[in-house]
Structure formats: C-alpha cells, structure tokens
C-alpha cells in the first residue's frame, strides 16, 4: 500500500509530490515520483521515522538524508514497525488522560501532605547550626535599625523579662540554647518571633501589654516551641520545595510557570505555617499547665493583642494568614487538657 506525501532531496528544501512504498523484494523501501521514477531507495531497517505525536506529519528519513513527509500516520506505522507508537497510543486516549490526572492529583496530595513536611523536617535536622546562625544574622541585619529599634523599656522591666525568660527556658528543658532580644518595633506593634538559631525577639510593645507573668510566659513558651521544632528552617525549606517540584515535573521554569505557582505556593505556605502555630500553642499550653499556669492567660493575651492591632473586626481572613484566627487559637488554648 503506497503512502502519498512529499519528497525532499538530501539537504534541500525543494519538495515534490511522491509516494513511499515497499519495494518488490519487501526488504527495501523506495520513494517514487508521480511518473514512477525512483527518487530514493534503502533497506527497510536503515530507514527511520519520527515518532508519532498527535496528528503531526511524519518524517521518514533515508540514510542519505533524503526525506519523505506524509500525514498518513497509520501507513507509516504499518511500513516501519517499532518507531515509538506506544507513547502516541497512550497520549490519544481520554480515558488514560483522566487516569493520569487522578494519579497526578493523588501524588500531589501525598506530596503536599507528607512529602513536603517530612523532607523539610529532615533537611532542617541536617542543617548545620552555622547555617541557622547565618540565616538568623541576615534576618536580624535586614530588620535592625529599620523595623527593629533598641529597646526603650526601663532596665528594671528588662531584667524582669530576662528572669521570666530564664525560668521558662529552664521549664522547657529541651537542651536548646535560647537568647532573648528586646527591641522596640513601633511599625510592627506587639509581637514576638523566634529566629532559627534560638534567638527570640520580643517587642517593647508586647512587653507593655503583658499584664501578669503568665502572659509573658505563654508567649515565650510559644516561641521556644518554634525553635525546638525548627519551624523557622522548616518553613524556609517548605517554601522552596513546592515551586522546585513543580518546575522539575513540568520541566518548565519559565516566567509564566513561576507566576502561576506563586499564589498556590503562598496559600500552601500559610497552611503549613498555621500548623506550626498550632503546634507551638499546644506545646506552650502543656508547658504552662505543667508549671501551674493557666493557658487561658495566653488566650486572653492573644485576644487583647488582636484588638489592639486590628480593632474589633479582627485581622483578615484566617485562610490567608500565617496564623490561625485568634478566636480559634484562644478557644483551643482554653480547652488545653490538664496534665
């Protein structure tokens, strides 16, 4: 069964109508023009064809560089067996496409739920302390002098906070080294955060709002839990794992691909971060209970801070935020079981 198409001489763009057919002895393939004259001839096993892909025209290449081009995909497959038809068959079926989609969704879900958190945890464990120190230094350097100013608390109050810090660190007893940094942060407001190497920053604005010891203890225990679980490093790794995986799988690190993964990556990152906050709250509540303090103090303190920063309406939707909604956190803290 001859296939009709076009013939190109070796190295030339000149095309002429032609047919490709099996020669009389069946071991040779030949290209003939419309008059029947032979244009190219070669043993069948030395002739190659491009693999089938969609409805693309096939190029059948002869050893001397002559080319035969045809839209007759089935014909080429029949003439030249073993030229990558399997993949094209997979790519043609809607049923397989749907199956692939399901498999991809399943893999992505597993990856997001288990793969990313556990590989980030492993990486964080393997990170040398010098690297954590460097990250912490860089973070502080970026904020000091701009967002963070020297503390303006009276030295008696500073000493009081340092004492509480030492006590909570002893309670916590995980063997980590913690350091307290007091900073005035008029632009940030009442806040506290932990750096990966164990330094914990508490703002003057937070210290001024803390009423009893338990308020402060709760916050410090929460931040120490972040350090203890390496939450800082883990979120750094988690943030880079998702885009890296997408770029690796789709093989597309283009701007378009990056832009489309920004939003899902941010949402995912906030979801991971909310998990960390919950874990830190749970640890803090347990620690407080063990030492005769009521986690409700931390709950009330969180609510007062939110009221101060965002007013009565709260601080925006929780599914966007890095922290769970304050009301939910407070309720969970108040429910925290006694030891």
């Amino acid at each position: 069964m001859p296939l009709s198409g076009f013939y190109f001489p070796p190295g030339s763009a000149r095309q002429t109508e032609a047919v490709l057919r099996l020669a009389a002895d069946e071991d040779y393939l030949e290209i003939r023009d419309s008059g029947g004259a032979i244009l190219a001839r070669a043993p069948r096993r030395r002739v190659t064809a491009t693999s089938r892909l969609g409805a693309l025209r096939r190029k059948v290449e002869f050893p001397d560089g002559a080319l035969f081009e045809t839209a007759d995909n089935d014909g080429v497959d029949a003439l030249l067996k073993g030229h990558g038809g399997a993949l094209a068959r997979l790519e043609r079926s809607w049923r397989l496409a749907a199956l692939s989609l399901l498999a991809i969704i399943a893999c992505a879900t597993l990856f997001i739920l288990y793969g990313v958190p556990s590989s980030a945890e492993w990486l964080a464990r393997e990170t040398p302390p010098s690297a954590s120190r460097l990250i912490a230094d860089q973070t502080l350097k970026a904020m000091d002098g701009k967002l963070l100013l020297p503390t303006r608390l009276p030295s008696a109050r500073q000493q009081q906070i340092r004492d509480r810090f030492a006590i909570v660190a002893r309670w916590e007893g995980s063997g980590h080294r913690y350091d307290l940094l007091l900073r005035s942060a008029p632009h940030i407001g009442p806040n506290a955060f932990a750096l990966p190497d164990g330094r914990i920053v508490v703002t003057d604005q937070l210290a001024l709002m803390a009423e009893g010891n338990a308020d402060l203890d709760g916050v410090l225990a929460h931040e120490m839990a972040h350090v203890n679980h390496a939450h800082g490093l883990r979120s750094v790794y988690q943030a880079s794992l998702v885009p890296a995986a997408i770029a690796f799988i789709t093989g597309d690190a283009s701007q378009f691909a990056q832009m489309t993964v920004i939003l899902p990556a941010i949402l995912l990152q906030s979801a991971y971060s909310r998990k960390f906050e919950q874990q830190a709250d749970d640890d803090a509540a347990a620690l407080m209970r063990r030492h005769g303090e009521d986690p409700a103090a931390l709950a009330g303190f969180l609510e007062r801070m939110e009221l101060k920063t965002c007013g009565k309406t709260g601080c925006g939707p929780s599914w966007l935020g890095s922290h769970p909604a304050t009301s939910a956190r407070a309720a969970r803290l108040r429910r925290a079981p006694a030891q």
Partner: protein
Amino acid sequence: MRFEGSAGEYFKIWIVNIALTIVTLGIFSAWAKVRSKRYFYGNTYIGTNAFDYHAAPLRILLGRAIAFGFLLAYSLTAAISPKLIGLWYLLFLAALPWLIKSSLRFAARNTSYRNVRFDFHGSYWGACKAFILWQMLAAITLFSMLPFAHRARDYYHINNSRYGQAAFEAEIPVGKLYKYYGLTLLAILGALAAIVALTGGTMNIFKPADAPVIFARIAAVIFGAVAFWGAPAYLGALTFNLALNNTRLGENVRFESHLSPVRMTWIVFSNIVLTIISLGLLYPWARVRRARYMAECMTVIGPADAGDFQSMPMPAGNAIGEEVASFFDIDFGL
C-alpha cells in the same frame, strides 16, 4: 503562519507525559519536553509545511543533571562556607555568555523547516557584549540606554542566525525602541497612579474596612497584577513586531508581524489567571491559544517556492548549555 494544534489533543499529551514523569521520578521529563516542543513546532505552518524539532532527550537529561549538580554544589557552599558564595557568582557571570551562546545554538540547530536546519554562530564575546556589557552600560546610565541594550540582544540573536546557507539580517531603528519603552513606562506609571488613587496610598490592603473601600482595593490589586504581568507582554509584543518587521532572510525573504500589544497583554494576563483558577488544568489550552494568536499575526513574504534553500553540513549542537540556562531560567527575549 498558522498554528494547527488543538488544546484537547495537547492536553492529553501533556497530562500523560506529566504522569510518566512522576512515575519515573523526573527522568522522563526530558522526553516530555521534547514531545511538547515537537508538538508546537510541528503544528506551526508556513504555507504547506511545518517546523520540526529534533533535540535528543538524552542530551537534555544530561544537561539537566549537570545543572542540578551545580545547584547542589552552590547550596552546599552556601551552607558550609558562605564567604565563598561570591566565587560562584563570578563563575556564573563568566559562564553566562557561554550558556546563552550554546543554548541559542542548540535551539537553532535542532529546528528545521522543509528538511533544512537552522543554525546559530554567535560567539562568546558577542554574547558577553550583548548580554552583560550593554546591560551594565544601561544600568550606569540610569536605564536611559536600555533600548540600545535591547537592540544589541536582538542583533546578537538574529544576525548570527542562519537558515541553511541563508543568513538572517536585522536592522532595527533604535528611535522606535525608545518610543516603545517610553509607552510602556507611561502605562506602568498610569497603573501605579490608579493603584495609589484606589487605595489612598495605604499598604496594608488586608486591614478591615467598608465595602466600597474593599472594592477599590480589589480593583487596585487587579490593576497591579495587570501592570506586573502585562507590562512585559505589552513591551514584548511591540519589540517583537519591530524586530521581525526589520529582519530579512537572504536576499528576498522578509517577515511581517502585527501582534497587537493590548491583545497580547490580555492573552498573557487571562492565561495566567485562568491557569491559576483551573489549578493548572487550562495550561495546555493557554499555551495553544497563545501560539495560535502569535502564528496568526506573522507572515513570511518571500519567493513563491522555498525550494531554493539548501542546508549546510553541520554537527548537532550541545544541550548542556541550553539546559543549564533554562534550569536557571535565563530568558533570551525575542
């Protein structure tokens, strides 16, 4: 030119290839990339014939492995002795022209039309001038020379390209480039002014407020997104037209491109939004849509028969440079 691929057909190819990539832990991605490229090249027609892409997946895989190795070495350096990071940047800067040169050559040599391959013979020094020195000069002059730097990049790309034995030649009026950069700058400033007007200059858009203020903020975010994603597409369409309209191939082939910058901005912006909303499922449709529009807007004006083109004997290009470059997301424009 016209694009004859269909979104449905490409969707099946794309999704099956992604599944295979996952199953093979990423190894198949090189084959997937080649199939995807072949699909787009093979469906882009000039007259009766389409382009073809010939890259060998194994070479791409090797290039990726090398790029990945470099990234690993870089990360290790960052973790162990951060002071040596500067050395990596120097090395990268020194390698950049080579990466650009070899990736353009790889792309050209693996592209053919009607049995004749393209070729690229730009030099290391040429890439160094076009992509580093001109950019530095543009930065020193507070970006007032940016259009010249743009032209240098286009010249390096186009004037070093060949189709068979015929050479491409571009002669781009820099005044037009100044006009286009100016227009884009105005569009960005306009969008910024609109954002400031809508938000009243406040930075915290999540701060609670009344409904009208919320709507104004949503509008501001949309404006910002259009400006951020759209500006490169807007400028890209204008400069692409300019470059192509001033390019000749050999003695008597010319090109015409009339991409509408507004339409191109719309396509890029809505493609991104729809891809995000559909969780990536509309990505194949978005790519096909863009390819179709771009092909529709381009015309080749030349001899009735392209049969006079003859190829030159040449070895295949080197995939390592291309893959290292695309791994680090270096974009060459045009």
